[in-house]
């Protein structure tokens, strides 16, 4: 009897498989349609960026528009892998200190001038001389234009992460001829690069209209005639615009709108994990959070899965390392603190915080009252997550008061040197846009990265970690660096619990279903559509 049942199931399954394969063969050509040229792509997005002088900023919304008109020496493919773009060949000496880069030949800027080694040198020089953002991640001793297409870089130390670092959009290559002619002012409102599109019209906080570059050096690209970015800062308006088919793409929609569009015919939702992590910084320099037991207790007390369910409606993943996530080269999962409020209570007892009146713990006559500084809409889910954390910490006897600030007040309030940092907890997000762990090591983990110099707002420092980081920076290849040091560094930082480790945030984009070849670039957390195309 049982054998018969199994046999029947087998037959049914085989029949299904045959059907599926047969159907698949028939549907083959439709599944991979050929790109067609022409058409205009319009994108509703949020920004308050006043200019497009890429060298001066490293901001998501500016990076979002950058790759259409400016190019970098290296780029990223849809899988996040670093690939050469304006560079054709590279030679690196065994000590890792001299890089000889051959540029792509026959590349012209939009003004007709050629891309050459001197032009690239001019761009790096501008960045460094003007101390524009991220100039300090360039380890250059000298930059030399050897001949028309050969650039020689000598470094102060081996930099296995040089490729990902300079693939960051802020290291865009401008036409020096144009740039010197128009000056700083002109570079803010226009752009002359080598990209597949040229800037046709730019009005800050309003519109950015891009037109196809007919002389683009990669033959056959781009497909679109025009790309239009519309600045629409109201969440509901963006959702309405894509639903009314006024735009083809809408960014940063609310979780509710995303869920609705998912089931609406004619639209698709692109989803992925970018490099953004949501966390709550704990001020390691100020009691009671200077006690590692208290910090661990806070990590045990919060149910991260509940945040994913309630705030992100199922999107995102529980973070498995401090600040870092799987999109980053050098990432090693170190773990997450199990949701276990009894463990949290035991740790707080151990640290001397006994349950007091009104369900608030007390030590030496002082109740455990902490301030959590947060924003509303500074990033998706910031306030909602803070509220959940407040409620969960209450359950273990920690009284949290929420302080909601607008962005302009928020940033200076939480960017203070150790002796003036008077906050307890701050809701923040971090994105490793270089896609390489060194950014985290140098601007978050190392004790010298403490705010305001860099972003270690926890004022965390551990001599063991510092020493490991310094050794890791001498490694000549990313592979050796990662395998020797990263596991130990990540696990040590994790055990020190400098922050309340929360969520690797989901990235979502609403797109009309006739748009193809648009993808998430994980490190930049943006959605390049420079080689996208539309079916009519």
């Amino acid at each position, binding site marked *: 009897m049982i054998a018969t049942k199994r046999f029947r199931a087998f037959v049914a399954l085989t029949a299904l498989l045959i059907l599926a394969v047969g159907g698949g063969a028939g549907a083959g050509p439709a599944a991979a349609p050929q790109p067609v040229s022409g058409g205009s792509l319009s994108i509703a997005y949020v920004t*308050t960026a*006043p*200019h497009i002088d890429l060298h001066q*900023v*490293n*901001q998501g919304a500016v990076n979002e528009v950058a790759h259409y008109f400016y190019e970098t020496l290296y780029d990223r493919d849809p899988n996040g892998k670093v690939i050469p773009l304006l560079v054709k060949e590279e030679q690196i000496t065994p000590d890792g200190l001299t890089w000889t880069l051959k540029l792509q030949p026959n590349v012209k800027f939009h003004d007709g001038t050629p891309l050459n080694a001197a032009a690239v040198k001019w761009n790096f020089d501008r960045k460094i001389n*003007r*101390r*524009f*953002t*991220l*100039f*300090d991640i360039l380890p250059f001793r000298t930059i030399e234009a050897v001949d028309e297409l050969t650039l020689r870089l000598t470094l102060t130390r081996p930099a296995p992460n040089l490729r990902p670092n300079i693939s960051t959009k802020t290291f865009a290559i401008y036409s020096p001829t144009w740039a010197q002619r128009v000056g*700083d*002012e002109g570079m*803010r*409102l226009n752009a002359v690069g080598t990209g597949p599109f040229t800037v046709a019209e730019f*009005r*800050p*906080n*309003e*519109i950015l209209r891009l037109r196809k570059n007919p002389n683009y050096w990669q033959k056959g690209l781009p497909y679109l005639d025009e790309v239009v970015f*519309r*600045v*629409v*800062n*109201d969440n*509901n*308006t963006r959702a*309405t*615009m894509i*639903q*009314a*088919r*006024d735009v083809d793409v809408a960014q940063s929609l609310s979780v509710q709108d995303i869920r609705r569009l998912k089931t609406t015919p004619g639209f698709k939702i692109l989803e992925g994990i970018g490099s953004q992590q949501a966390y709550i910084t704990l001020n390691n320099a100020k009691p009671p959070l200077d006690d590692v037991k208290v910090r661990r207790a806070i990590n045990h007390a919060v149910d991260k899965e509940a945040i994913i369910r309630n705030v992100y409606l199922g999107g995102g993943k529980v973070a498995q390392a401090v600040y870092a996530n799987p999109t980053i080269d050098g990432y090693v999962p170190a773990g997450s603190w199990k949701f276990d409020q009894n463990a949290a209570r035991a740790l707080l007892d151990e640290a001397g915080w006994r349950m007091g009146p009104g369900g608030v713990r007390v030590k030496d006559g002082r109740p455990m009252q902490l301030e959590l500084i947060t924003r509303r809409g500074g990033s998706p889910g910031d306030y909602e997550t803070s509220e959940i954390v407040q409620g969960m910490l209450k359950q273990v006897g920690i009284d949290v008061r929420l302080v909601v600030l*607008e*962005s*302009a*007040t928020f*940033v*200076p*309030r939480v*960017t203070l040197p150790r002796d003036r940092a008077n906050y307890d907890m701050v809701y923040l997000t971090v994105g490793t*846009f270089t896609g390489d762990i060194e950014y985290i090591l140098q601007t978050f983990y190392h004790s010298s990265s403490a705010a*305001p*110099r*860099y*972003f270690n707002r926890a004022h965390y420092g551990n001599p063991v970690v510092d020493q490991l980081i310094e050794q890791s920076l001498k490694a000549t290849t990313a592979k050796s660096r990662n395998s020797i040091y990263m596991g130990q560094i990540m696990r040590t930082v994790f055990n020190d619990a400098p922050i309340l480790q929360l969520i690797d945030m989901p990235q979502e984009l609403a797109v009309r279903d006739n748009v193809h070849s648009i993808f998430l670039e994980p490190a930049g957390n943006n959605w390049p559509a420079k080689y996208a195309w539309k079916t009519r």
Partner: protein
Amino acid sequence: MTAYLVRRALLSIPTLFLVVTVVFLAFQIIPSDPARLFAGETAAQETVERIRKDLGLDRPAWVQYTDYITKLVTGNLGRSFTTRRLVVDELGPRFVNTIKLSVWAILLATTVGVLLGTIAAVNQGKTMDHIATIIALVGISIPVFWLGLLMMFFFSVTLGILPAAGNETWRHYIMPTVALSVFSLAFIARMTRSSLLEVIRQDYVRTARAKGAQEWVVIGRHALANALLPVVIVVGLRFGFMLGGALVVEEVFAWPGLGRLMIVAVGQRDIPVVQGVLLLFAATFFLINALVDLAYGLLDPRIRYA
């Protein structure tokens, strides 16, 4: 009359000065750091300090203030902190967009408002009056952003006949104009109704009727002409307030006007732009008030300005 206008203009100067000073002080008091904001959250301290110096924010507050005032006196509004363009260039096109929207909205509000108010007054206590009163009540109570979103959803998503946001064609004007006018429309309708009701009871209206004039002549020429005097003031004031109301409408419909410019500028602590927008608002308000006073004098021969 010229003397009157000159006096009004002179009177406005201390007020504008006060506006500038209060805004400056407000930005000194609220905790924020424009240089850090422009540099972005991921900028190193060294970059922030360079920007601070570029913007002149490393100087003491009183130096920044006197510098600003000195330039202002010569008509120089300075440069935007964020775009580094002249504030005048930032304001110009935005002001035109806001004025265009406001003019259409006030025209709509006045014509429909007066019509609605007249219908209500003439049919006092009847069904038409009740309908008009309810429309006016809804118009005054409805939040503008919500009305905007409702219209957008209905006309753009469901019916697909109007573009949701932007300002390219005349079709883009329809929804923002309606949204911006609704409150004023209701206000004007109410005002017209009560004013007209008062006038209709006057002796000269009865006389006109007794002479055998047709009803529309009685209402149109005799009653309305007098009843509209207070309405003129309301229209003028509403136009001034509309510049403020445009803040919400412009944000919802992504309309590139002064309101949106100001929201962004405040968020970014772009003080020169905020100063510029507020000065322009204040000056426009002054101008409108003066014009309303003049219009009042022209419409009512009993009022004279010396």
